[in-house]
Every structure is written in C-alpha cells, then in structure tokens.
C-alpha cells in the first residue's frame, strides 16, 4: 500500500459539492453525518475543515440545490437537516458526468498498472 496522502486543498475544493450532492441523493442528512461519511468512505484521507462544510451547504441552499429544515435529533436537541431538490439532482447529474470523464481518462492511462 502506498503511504497515506491527504487530498490537496484544490481537489478537496473541487470535489466537495459533488460529494455532498451524492450523499444527499441517498437521503436526508445533516452536517456532522456528512463529514463522518466522507471520512469513512475515504479511509480518513479526506479531511475537511469541519466548519467549512456549512457555508457550502448554505450556498447550495441559496442556489436552490438543497433545502433544509430544523428537526429533532435522537438526543432531543434540534438539528438542521438537508435534502436534495430537483435543481440539486440536475447539478449532480452534470457534475457526475464531468467526474466520470476525468476518471475514465485516468482509468485508461493507468490501466496497465492494475492489469
């Protein structure tokens, strides 16, 4: 296994939105859970500055991609939940196509490594 490399900030910045959109496409969620999911899925290689997720969520809400509601958490405290809207699904489709192109190129370029 190669040494664990933490993602560069440029890549983090570029991939945050599609990741949030993809996670929310699986159902309603909230900030802390989104961060934990990304940490888990990336094997701790993606480290967001936790607080920075929230401005992104707020901008996506104003953009009309997601909507939010205050609900109650298991511990009885109030918590802000986000879910995907139609505009968000469209944005996700577009971003997904772009990432698929990028990853397709790499797959072909690096094929021999894995064969």
């Amino acid at each position: 296994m190669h040494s664990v490399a933490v993602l560069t900030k440029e890549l983090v910045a570029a991939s945050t939105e599609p990741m949030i959109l993809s996670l929310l496409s699986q159902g309603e969620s909230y900030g802390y859970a989104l961060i934990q999911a990304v940490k888990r899925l990336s094997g701790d290689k993606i480290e967001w500055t936790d607080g920075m997720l929230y401005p992104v969520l707020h901008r996506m809400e104003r953009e009309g991609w997601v909507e939010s509601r205050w609900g109650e958490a298991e511990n009885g405290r109030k918590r802000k939940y986000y879910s995907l809207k139609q505009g968000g699904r469209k944005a996700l489709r577009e971003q997904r196509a772009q990432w698929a192109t990028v990853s397709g190129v790499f797959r072909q370029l690096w094929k021999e490594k894995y064969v």
Partner: protein
Amino acid sequence: MFDLERAIQAWRRQMAASGVHPAEVLDELEGHLRDDVAEQVRSGAEAGPAFAAAVRRLGPAWALAKEFTKADQAPRRRPRRRLVQGVCFTSAAGVLLINTWTLLEYDLGVAERVAGLCAVVLAALYLASVPFLRGLLSGAAWVRFMATVKLASLLLALVPVWALLTAGGIIRVGILPSMVIWLFYAAVAISLFPGALGGDPGQEGGSGAPLPPSNPRPQTIPPNWPVPPELESPLPPSRALAANARQSLELAREEARRLGHDFIGTEHVLLGILESATGSLAAVLQNRGLDREALRREIERLVAPLPPRANPTALPFTPRARRAPRLAGSEAKRLKRPVIGAEHLLLGLLREGSGVAAQALKNLGFRLQPLRAEISE
C-alpha cells in the same frame, strides 16, 4: 472541572464577535460541536480535550466568517442578472416595435425607411447584448467602454433641453434625426443600468467549493475562550469616571451575573449603559429606536444565558470590554470633557465595533457610525 455548557457559550461569544453572527448559523455549528464531542466521549475521550479538538476541527472563526459572508453574497447575482437581462431585452423589443411602427406610419421615402430600419435594428441588437458585454470584452476594453458610456451620459443632460425646444416649436427636426436621438438616449441609459445595479452581469457566481485549508494565518481576533486568568484585573480608569459611567459598569456586572456569565463582555456593558441612561443620552437612544428589551433578546440569542452561579466571584472583563473604557477615555478627551460619562463608554463600545455588543446592534439594523455621530453631538 470542565463545563461543556460554559465552554460552548464562550465559544458562541467568540464566533459572534468574529462575525459569524446569525443565531441560526451558531445553533447549527453548536449542534455540530455537540455531536463531535459526544462521539469522542463515547469512544473514551475526556470532555475538555474533546471540546478543544472539536473546536479546532471546526476551523478558525475568521475563516468561517469569511466563507459565510461569501455564501450569503454569491446568489444575489443571479436574480440581478435576470433583472438586467429582462430590462435590456424588454427595451430592445420596445425600441424595435415603436420605431418600426414610426417608420411605417410616417410618410418617408424608401431610402429613409431602410436607413431608419438599419439604425433601429442595430440599436435593438446593441440593447439586447448589454447584459453580455462584460463577458465579451476583455478587462481593459470593458474599462474603456464604461468610460465612454459615462462620458456619453453627460450628453443625456441635453435631451430634456432638446425636448423642450422641439415641444415649443423653436427648433424643428425631422422624424429620423429625432429617432436617432432617442435611440442614443436609450442606448446610453441602458448601458449605465447594469453598472448602477452594482451587479456583475457577465460573471457567473463562483461555483467552486472553497474549503480553505485549516493552516493558521495571522489571527486578528485574540482567542478569548476560556477567559484567560490575566484578565482578572480591575478596569484601568485612565480618567475619572463620572457617576453614571460607574453606575453603568456596576450594572454591567449585574447583567453578567443575571445571565450566568462568568465574565463581563461588551454586551453586558452595553446593557448597563442602556439601563442607566438618563437625560440627553436616553433621548438620543429613544430617538434612534434603540429598545432595551429588543437588544436584550438579541444578545440572549447570540450568547445563551446560563443558570446564575451560586458563588458570584469577581468577574473579569473580556479584552474587548476592557478596551471600551480606554476608548471612552480618548472619546472624552476628543469631546473635551473632564470626566468619562456613560455616553463616552457607549462611544467607546461603538468604536470598538466588533464585540458582541456591536454585533447585536448590527443585527438589529443599527449602523454604528451614524449612531456614534449622533451621540457625539
């Protein structure tokens, strides 16, 4: 013993003072902190270090404030852009229809009609393209273009004169020249329109996801949670305090106790001043519609009250609250007053400009500079 409630409350103050102020945003971030701390405690960590780690992971307050400001500003461009497009397209259509009708209605030769039609179509095309000019022109070309438009707009002042002269029958121009003048008028006015709105119609709102790295940058705001012990010193009265100023500070202490806070912050001093305000200061505050109860509610939204402590110890002033009397001293000097009064304390708080007091006032829609000017009189 680490007290999570107090730590969170001090953290909220710090965030509010750094510019992350809507209470709803603070609630959301607080929920995040609590989730993070709870998770760490479940896996065996102590609450104190867990809280510190959670706050660190959340990122520096200044960076959050910046990102939230950006997030709030970004989408405003979209409706504006649509507005600019709407206005430009409508006027293009209007110009096209009205002038074509004019050309057909008036008795004109074929050559005149064709020339007029060309001018009209050109003008309409130009109007319709205004929303996209910013994107089409390079930076320098755009600056030159706007300079030309501004220069041309000086000529607009002549249009009413010309309209008066024609209405009075003093000068007579044919239908074609007057049409050209109106077209020019419309073109210049519409060109100014996007600029006047302050929008940047040619530029897309930033769509990248800025997640700045958490590396430290020179911090302009001194971290003040928990309240450092060196602050347990009394106020430095650089000048004699007037009776009402002393009363304000006493009341500030009372406010802090009542809210269960173990420090005296700018918000408590502000409440103390309002409580003790009499005479002309009270009149000014009333004039400006500064309602003490509304302010108290806003402050309690920003920094949640806690159950009062059983053993009230000497409460330290926060760095910002300590600066206010010092600034008050220089305010008194500026206004050539021998003693520091409550009004100077208030001026000091407003000049300080970034504490919870200033933030609460801003949230209630007060602008600090005009308020300062009025109190200074």
